[in-house]
């Protein structure tokens, strides 16, 4: 992949030695007709698993686009090049990477940045420099009017929406227990619960059963508390490895025999669903990008548009395209960037933002519309899993539809 340069290490080496010739090398290939795009990925630290997937998915996209001759931008066919930095799963490094990309590397867009705190850390820089940036952070704090920070992922306050719809429609569930991570995301989840059941007066009720840290190893006390509470289902807000630990432990304790386990985005975003497969019985998970992993299931296929399915087949035919939901999300971001570049016919940040906002964009995730606050309305499904065979298999689709772009409580959008 000659056009794809991972330059974090090189950039640091250059800075450390102060070699002028090396510095020139660090500045990258800015000539020719190549379009420079940025990526800030966590290639080390706690989120490195996702960063490596992002690198692979973006490489696949670059190879695909350049292999087809490049993009048609304003009457000119141009190849693309990604300048990537490792944010080391740290806010400081993310900020410094955003500074370099927007000022030294002169990129037109940043295809990825990670974590909610990472998004907050770079928000001012990318807005001041008017560089449209896709984030995989979930915080609504960056969802301000006219922002250049975009996402095709759900916000923290959208996370529980399908599960709440399901609960309010259910005859069997009157009250749910909630355990949530400490921090903004957990706060947002509980705010949404409070608003949904008590202010918006939807059917059902909830009880806060406690908060935990992302590094929580042992969930047995939370499981004990849930089992001994007067609830009909348990909603769990966390993600990735913490979600995997919880799902495994609740299954060992048999909690899913007693009640449904409801999860939001985290449930759809396991590091490896295969690893927890047998523990997924009676577990409900929101699928935005996970749906594609089950696209060969008829019930799931019905929730995905034909165009998105067709694009997904193309994605799967790309050599080295990673088979993981996070990679699908990253690839969809790159597809949205592709749409913006060709639609705007320009590499100017302001033009690219204008192309992205308010227009329906079709990616492998389906049809999405990003609003002025950078938040998409995007299709999703609440999937009930069955793990009795030892693998996570689809039981039923409990809810599906277009997720509304909620960025505040009370919601500023019509639900």
């Amino acid at each position, binding site marked *: 992949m000659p056009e794809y340069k991972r330059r974090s290490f090189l950039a640091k080496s250059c800075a450390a030695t102060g070699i002028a010739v090396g510095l020139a090398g660090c500045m990258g290939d800015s000539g020719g007709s190549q379009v420079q795009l940025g990526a800030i990925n966590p290639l*080390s630290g*706690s989120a*490195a*698993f996702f960063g*490596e997937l992002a690198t692979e998915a973006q490489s696949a996209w670059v190879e695909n686009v350049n292999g087809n001759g490049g993009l048609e931008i304003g009457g000119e066919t141009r190849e693309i090049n990604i300048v990537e930095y490792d944010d080391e799963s740290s806010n400081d490094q993310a900020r410094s990477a955003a500074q370099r990309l927007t000022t030294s590397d002169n990129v037109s867009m940043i295809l990825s940045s990670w974590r909610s705190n990472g998004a907050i850390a770079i928000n001012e820089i990318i807005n001041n420099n008017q560089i449209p940036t896709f984030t995989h952070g979930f915080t609504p704090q960056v969802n301000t009017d006219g922002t250049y920070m975009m996402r095709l992922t759900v916000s923290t306050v959208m996370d529980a929406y399908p599960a709440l719809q399901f609960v309010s429609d259910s005859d069997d569930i009157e009250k749910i227990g909630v355990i949530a991570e*400490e921090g903004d995301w957990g706060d947002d989840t509980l705010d949404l619960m409070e608003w949904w059941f008590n202010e918006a007066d939807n059917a059902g009720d909830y009880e806060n059963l*406690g*908060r*935990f*840290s992302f*590094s*929580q*190893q*042992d969930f*047995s*006390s*939370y499981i*004990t*508390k849930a*089992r*001994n509470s007067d609830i009909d289902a348990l909603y769990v807000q966390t993600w990735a*490895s913490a979600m*995997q*630990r919880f799902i*495994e*432990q609740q299954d*060992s*304790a*048999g909690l899913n025999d007693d009640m449904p386990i409801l999860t939001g985005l985290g449930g759809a975003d396991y*590091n*490896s669903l295969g*690893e927890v497969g047998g523990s997924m019985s009676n577990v409900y998970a929101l699928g935005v990008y996970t749906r594609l992993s089950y696209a060969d299931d008829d019930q799931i296929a019905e929730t995905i548009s034909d165009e998105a399915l067709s694009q997904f087949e193309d994605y799967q035919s790309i050599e080295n395209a990673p088979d993981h939901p996070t990679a699908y999300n990253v690839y969809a971001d790159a597809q949205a960037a592709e749409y913006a570049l060709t639609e705007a016919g320009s590499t100017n940040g302001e033009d690219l933002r204008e192309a992205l906002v308010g227009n329906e964009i079709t990616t492998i995730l389906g049809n999405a519309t990003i609003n002025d606050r950078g938040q998409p309305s995007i299709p999703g499904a609440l999937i009930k899993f069955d793990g009795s065979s030892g693998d996570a298999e689809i039981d039923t689709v409990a809810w599906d539809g277009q997720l509304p772009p909620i960025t505040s409580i009370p919601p500023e959008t019509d639900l």
Partner: protein
Amino acid sequence: MVLLESLINGLIQGSIFAVFAASFTIIFGVMDIPNMGHAALFAGGAYVFYQLVNLTGLPWIVGLIGAVLAIAVLGAVVEKTLLSRLYGRKESEYVFGVILVTIGLARILERGYAQIWGHAPKYIELGNLQENSVQVSGTSVSHLELVVIAFAVANFAFLYWLINYTDTGLSLQAIVQNRELAIMRGINVDRVFLIAFTLGAAMIAAAGVLNAAMFTLEPTLGFSLLIKAFIIVILGGIGRVMGAMVAGYALGLYEAFAVLYLSSYYIYASEFAVLIAFFLLKAIVLSEGEDSLIAGLKERATSLRQGVAE
């Protein structure tokens, strides 16, 4: 029922805390400096086991022995090649040197684990221990959880014997209590340092395997336990293995019951509040040269009673 379940949860969690902290305090007590790479050795033991059992297919008992031996050797090599060179330096250089070397080692090992085995969480199987369970008054306890408690008990029984009935243990105690005096009495400090580091590494490797079998295995496994180990070791007394056991179980039981009533934020905050109160009490009660808070409190209480009687 909920109280019994919480008690069992607390005993299991306390066993992990206690073994982690005991191995940490052996090194801390002897060397006067915390080993910031302890969590990385904890994960290392689990990864060696994962390699030997899950990937290579060896029996789990071979994997466990292999993990303990591999990490013990790694601990010995680190002590001999990196840390021993700092012992003769002036105090500030020694303190910062050991802390920085062990932090650096932890980062290198964590990155190495990720490079070799990836960042994704791994599940490790310990025979059928995870699958089989027994009922205790209507509460299900897996065989693995029983093994964790049994391992902790056996571990502390071994340490009690080692520390109180062997020359090595008496040397360890002597250095913890008064290093200068120990040297004057002819104790080979370099040898004891090596034994302490190797023993601590071997213990933490076994604990890492059990912890990973209970939960999941990741390169950062054990980092959250490192903070708890500081709390346990300080409350239990630096270098005091049995103190670590008592404080470890107390913390495990406290967390298991506290979660019924408090959010984790208040649980962690209260743990640190106890730590701060402990330091304040020591500063108020103890005179220069005194170390034991309990002994100091007893002495002050005796003086007070005598004063009242007079």
